[in-house]
């Protein structure tokens, strides 16, 4: 992989150029003491040293609410698909979120490729940035998601006065040549990048005491653990954990019509297994009607089901769920560590 250097004073012009180019640039901005991805109006808003964002960048590829089809009602209804995709630059995406997008790529392209996701994805450029100030609930190193080797067009690492830029694709390279002032990275600078990454590893506060490959087996043994009931007792079924998660991709589908009752649309919106009615069926049945089974299902998805189905981790260790959960029960790390303990 080729590596370049952008001096810090050249970063602002680079971002400005991107903003002024035709694509929309999305980046992390400050929000009430936290960070959130949002459209950048000017470089000054961009915060590349953030810990984590409230919502994951997946929202730009798989929007919280998205129209799937439009229709006209009446005797002879007409239907047409709606696929919206515009060029987009996701700037400052952390490696764990990149890994999560890689999972979405697989999930939305396997068996029945989803044109709505994939068209957006195709038009998106991902400019990553290494996470050097991890969120206190994150446990990326344990899952191998603290850094990423693939899944980006460019990857930045802050090494003090400058950024090392790893080039991940020709698209990335073109952007760089067109819009940024760069130079070749020296060996010293590359070594510096390594040491920054190393130092960052030491800043993670949560560790998973089991390797991710072993998680499916561990979970196989843990179905009847008392942990599920004990811990889920406090669950508010508030869905915060699933909404903030970069790897969750379940959705609900509903129809809406305009006020003239003549035309309408079918849209999907984020949904998730922690919400009470997620598995409810007609006639009053609910296949996961209690907190315990919903809580367990989510953890199994994170540690086993997704892995077995798509060959990728269902959790990237970003810690957003743990930060969002008021009941303090949502962290997969805590659950997996505890089950590991139990299994001894």
């Amino acid at each position: 992989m080729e590596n370049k250097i952008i001096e810090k004073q050249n970063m602002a012009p680079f971002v400005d150029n991107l903003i002024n180019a035709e694509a929309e640039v999305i980046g992390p901005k400050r929000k009430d003491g936290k960070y959130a991805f949002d459209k950048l109006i000017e470089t000054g808003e961009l915060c590349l040293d953030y810990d984590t964002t409230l919502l994951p960048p997946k929202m730009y590829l798989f929007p919280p609410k998205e129209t799937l089809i439009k229709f006209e009602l009446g005797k002879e209804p007409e239907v047409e698909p709606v696929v919206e995709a515009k060029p987009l630059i996701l700037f400052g995406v952390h490696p764990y979120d990149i890994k999560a997008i890689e999972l979405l790529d697989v999930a939305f392209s396997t068996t029945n490729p989803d044109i709505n996701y994939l068209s957006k994805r195709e038009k998106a450029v991902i400019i990553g940035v290494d996470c050097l100030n991890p969120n206190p609930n994150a446990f990326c190193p344990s899952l191998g998601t603290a850094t990423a080797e693939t899944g980006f067009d460019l990857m930045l690492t802050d090494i003090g006065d400058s950024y090392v830029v790893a080039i991940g694709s020709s698209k990335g390279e073109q952007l760089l040549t067109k819009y940024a002032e760069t130079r070749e990275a020296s060996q010293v600078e590359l070594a510096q990048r390594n040491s920054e990454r190393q130092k960052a590893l030491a800043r993670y506060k949560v560790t998973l005491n089991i390797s991710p490959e072993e998680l499916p087996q561990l979970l196989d043994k843990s179905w009847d653990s008392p942990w599920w009931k004990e811990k889920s007792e406090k669950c508010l079924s508030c869905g915060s954990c699933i909404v903030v998660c970069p790897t969750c991709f379940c959705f609900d589908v509903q129809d809406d019509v305009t006020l003239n009752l003549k035309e309408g649309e079918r849209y999907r919106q984020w949904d998730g297994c922690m919400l009470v009615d997620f598995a409810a069926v007609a006639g009053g049945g609910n296949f996961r009607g209690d907190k315990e089974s919903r809580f367990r299902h989510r953890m199994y998805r994170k540690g086993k089901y997704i892995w077995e189905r798509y060959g990728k981790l269902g959790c990237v260790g970003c810690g957003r769920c743990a930060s969002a959960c008021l009941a303090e029960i949502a962290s997969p790390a805590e659950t997996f560590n505890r089950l590991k303990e139990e299994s001894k």
Partner: protein
Amino acid sequence: MKAKLAFFDFTGCEGCQLEVLNFETELVELLNHVDIVNFREAKTESEDNYEIAFVEGSITRESEIPKLKKIRQQAKIVVALGACACLGGVNCLKNFRPMKENLRIVYGDAAKYYDTIPARPISSIVPVDYYVHGCPIDKKEFLKVTKALLLGKRPEIPNYPVCVECKLAGNVCTFDKGETCLGPVTRAGCNAICISNGRHCWGCRGPVDDPNTNSEKEILQKHGLTVEDILNQFRIFNGYLEVSK
């Protein structure tokens, strides 16, 4: 044939009816396929022939009970409009004092001329088909419910907490700002409008079907509220649930 809609108000601030009048352009659209036959706040003529009755306000006097029953008899569908009708709303704050004392505080010597009973939601008197929650109602949700009813479908009202919409709105959680919130037990549908505007959720939409109130109380206590504070918070809009338990 155009569907006939009627609006009625009992004890409340009439803010929900006002929200309906606030439809501006949508109101004009809507009038193409409904007839509003009864809307005292906005129109003089009235008719006793309607299919869908929207009822605002809670019941706080004996004399309101037969009126409400008559509406129920007449209407095919009764929709409770707003927190007062759905939950009893802020009016129930008076239920925590003897009615005599309320009367004395407000009317002094003249108290003997007035009648008042503990405030209650309309569902405590007649069966209610659908609820448009909120104090005041959310205009979009009102439209959603109305459209669904016109199409003959059951409106999809969320049965998950406000936190879902709050997170989707990209808000920083009020608990993270050192304050507290009733969002985790309150039914969504408002798009977390209060939190998005820098406040917290006061529970005006009532609880979800199966709220984890114990967990919420523990969380509130952990964030510095006393048991009394917590009761006060719940009572602001949901006092009726407490009393009727």
